[in-house]
């Protein structure tokens, strides 16, 4: 009896969704959107969004305040001569001095901004659109997005962000990297659906 309920539950769910979802949507769109919610929660967490700014500066800290010492984006997102990102940020975390590091530390390009010019995170719909727009995301197709989330050094950094100057550990994104990759995969397999609206 339980087995049949288990078998029937997806049928009921599908039937339900068949009524509520417009015919053009993929059958697993809801799961995809739920997976995107998970992905979005990571993208707008401080460890990621602090470098996806719409301004000429990065942010830092869990309160996402403007990065100290007036560091600026520069023409390519690597800072400016005399004050580059890599003037301080090396290829790996410097826990003894509290400076995070990773491969080629730099700001995400303005096309990859996930907040507005007033430092407010963009909506889930807006970020989703930006992330899936190949004219903005450095031409990443769906498999490339998944690979980026799974393997890119600066992405991985978010789960190994190192110590602050006061000795405490930086906070991690809301889900583990494994969960993040799984959610990305689910979202990708669902055809990277985006929420409607602004």
């Amino acid at each position, binding site marked *: 009896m339980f087995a049949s309920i288990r078998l029937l539950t997806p049928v009921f769910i599908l039937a339900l969704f068949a009524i509520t979802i417009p015919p053009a949507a993929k059958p697993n769109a809801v799961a995809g959107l739920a997976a995107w919610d998970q992905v979005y929660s990571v993208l707008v967490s401080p460890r990621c969004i602090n470098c996806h700014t719409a301004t000429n500066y990065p942010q830092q800290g869990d309160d996402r305040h403007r990065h100290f010492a*007036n560091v600026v984006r520069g023409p390519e997102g690597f800072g400016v001569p005399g004050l580059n990102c890599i003037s301080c940020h090396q290829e790996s975390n410097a826990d003894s001095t509290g400076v995070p590091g990773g491969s080629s530390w730099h700001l995400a390009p303005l096309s990859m901004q996930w907040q507005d010019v007033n430092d407010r995170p963009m909506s889930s719909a807006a970020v989703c659109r930006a992330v899936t727009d190949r004219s903005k995301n450095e031409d990443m197709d769906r498999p490339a997005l998944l690979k980026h989330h799974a393997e890119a050094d600066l992405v991985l950094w978010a789960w190994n962000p190192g110590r602050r100057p006061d000795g405490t550990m930086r906070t991690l994104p809301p889900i583990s990297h494994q969960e993040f990759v799984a959610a990305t995969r689910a979202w990708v397999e669902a055809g990277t659906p985006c929420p409607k609206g602004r």
Partner: protein
Amino acid sequence: MQPALSRRNFIQLTTAATGGLLISLYLDKPSAIAQQPPPPKVYPPDAFVHVRRDGHIVITVNRLEFGQGVQTALPMILADEMDADWSNVIAELAPAADVYKDPMFGIQRVGGSGSIAHSFQQYRELGAKARAMLVAVAAERWKVTPDQCRTENSVVYGPGNRTARYAELADDAARKPVPQNVKLKNASEFRIIGKRVPRLDSRSKCDGSQKFGLDLDLPGMKIALVAHPPVFGGRVKSIDDRDARSLDGVRDVFEIPLAKGTAVAVVADRFWTAKQARDRLKIDWDLSGVEQADTVQLLARYKQMALADGNVALNRGDVKAMEQISRANRIIAEYEFPFLAHAPMEPLNATVKFEGDKAEAWVPSQFQTMDQVVIAEVLGLKPDKVTFHTEFAGGGFGRRATTDSHIPREAALIAKRLRGTPVKLIWSREDDVRGGYYRPMHVHRVEIGIGRDGMPAAWRHVVVGQSLLAGTPFAMMIKDGVDETAVEGTKDTSYNIPNFRVTVHHPTVNVPVLWWRSVGHTHNAFVMETLVDELATRAKVDPIAYRQKLLKADAKKLHSVLELLDQKSGWRKTLPRGRAAGIACHESFDTAVACAVEVSIENKRPRIHRATVAVNCGLAVNPLTVESQFQGGLGFGLTQLVAKGAITLKDGHIEQRNFDGYAPPYIVDVPVTIDVHIVPSTEPPTGCGEPPVPVISPAVVNALSRLTGKRYRTLPLTII
């Protein structure tokens, strides 16, 4: 001989923040001033100037060089009277010794913007005496009279084309008696004084060779860091140092007493080792019985106190005249000022070596006499057994002059335990930001009754803030419950306010406080100059014209700078939209300053496009130094306006750690250009170290008020 200072100036200076009434036994003042001149102290030239065989002239500077340029300006004065070849002059900083004490204050120190003001006459006489002794030797050799000789560029010229270089004459000159009286040059004869002379220490500060206190390296030297209590006055209950001692290179860990409370010293071979060891210490602190100051609570308390009159600093006329003025013609204003840290670029440090019967100290110190005495006390020595070297300092702004000499005291305590080993005590930047000795927080409450002529007719001013002098050796200067340093800039205003009452409350708070470059003027000038500007706006009168009208006629220096500023700031009249001009003027330490700034608002911050400054500092010994001091001083003054320019406390703990939380002005925060104009004067020189600081913040805020229509009475400026 020209008088160094008028009696009024002398009295003002001796009651100034940094040292006041230590009436000097060593007044080197000419008899023109006093009825009964005290016997002048003889300053032996050989302690101040040494002519080497190779022709170099080494001039000893009785002040710390910490940016103000004194290691160039004082030698200029001496070299001019001496007719020395400037290109051969080398400056050295004097060690601590009796002969190097400030002639006015009687202790060796730098502060109160007094270096040139107090030593101008002294260094002139030294130069003239040195010259006279050299000429005497030449005259003797040539069998002529000194009158038949003249001097120029380190050469004595005698009759019949005879010449002798100073270097050839120096040894014999040193054996000559020092003349009691010398004739000084007329101002028209100055060849160096009054010229834009580049600094002597420029190159070495550009190529990394200049050594500061922190750079000292001695054989066998150890580094010490101190773990201070997290709340001022706390005491060590227990220490677990096993983790700390396990590090390679840690030499010792032990408790030391502080002026209030106790702390733990860590000594190691290297700075990084000491820092890591200190980070690993597990200290149990006893915080019982110490007040846990909290700036939110203090602010509420201060505002409450400000509602009532305090101790009377000034009562002129009758402020009850206010009652005759309708409410519509009154201004009631409340101002808030935070604690400020000095944060000089070079972290605080002191190096001491104790050898039982004597000691040696190397300190970038603004207070050599006091520091030497304290080191000697700690080590059980007489002060003259402590050889005290004055190192170049990376800034100070008052921080390196504390009445308790707490930095050298800590160093001496540690050196005592490590007898025979030189110990360099370093305060990390975190120690500095959290270590106290701040410009105190203040609240002002002002009520102004405006007369029919638009001028202030009645003015009641209440100041609330800790006394700088209470609990220090200078406490006796507090009269009738008033610490003058809290009201300077208001009480002594040159504005003509007929009914003027200034009172002050001095709460006792468990936060050590200290004079911060320009001291009481930092907050008092802000209040006065923003209120006067508001009055000018209400009266629809140009802000410079209003001030000229409101100032007393005899405020000559202030009138002169306002006039000069008016001439040089014609740009005020043709500003583009979105930009406004702001004006402020102030006299402090006998120097008058007027400033105009051009401001717009960019990214929610004031963007200062330019500043034009007019200065009256009497004779400008080195106009280049004066220009630099004013450009720099304006920038320093903006520490009061930058968004992160506040030290705050919560439950006794300082909330800021380093320059991330307490961020002084960077290049973007200061004017892009600053042009400085000096009123030509032959009056005795007055200081330039502090006078720039008070004017910039009110000038900028006055411009902002014109842009936004708002009044800004809370510092730092976080919202515009």
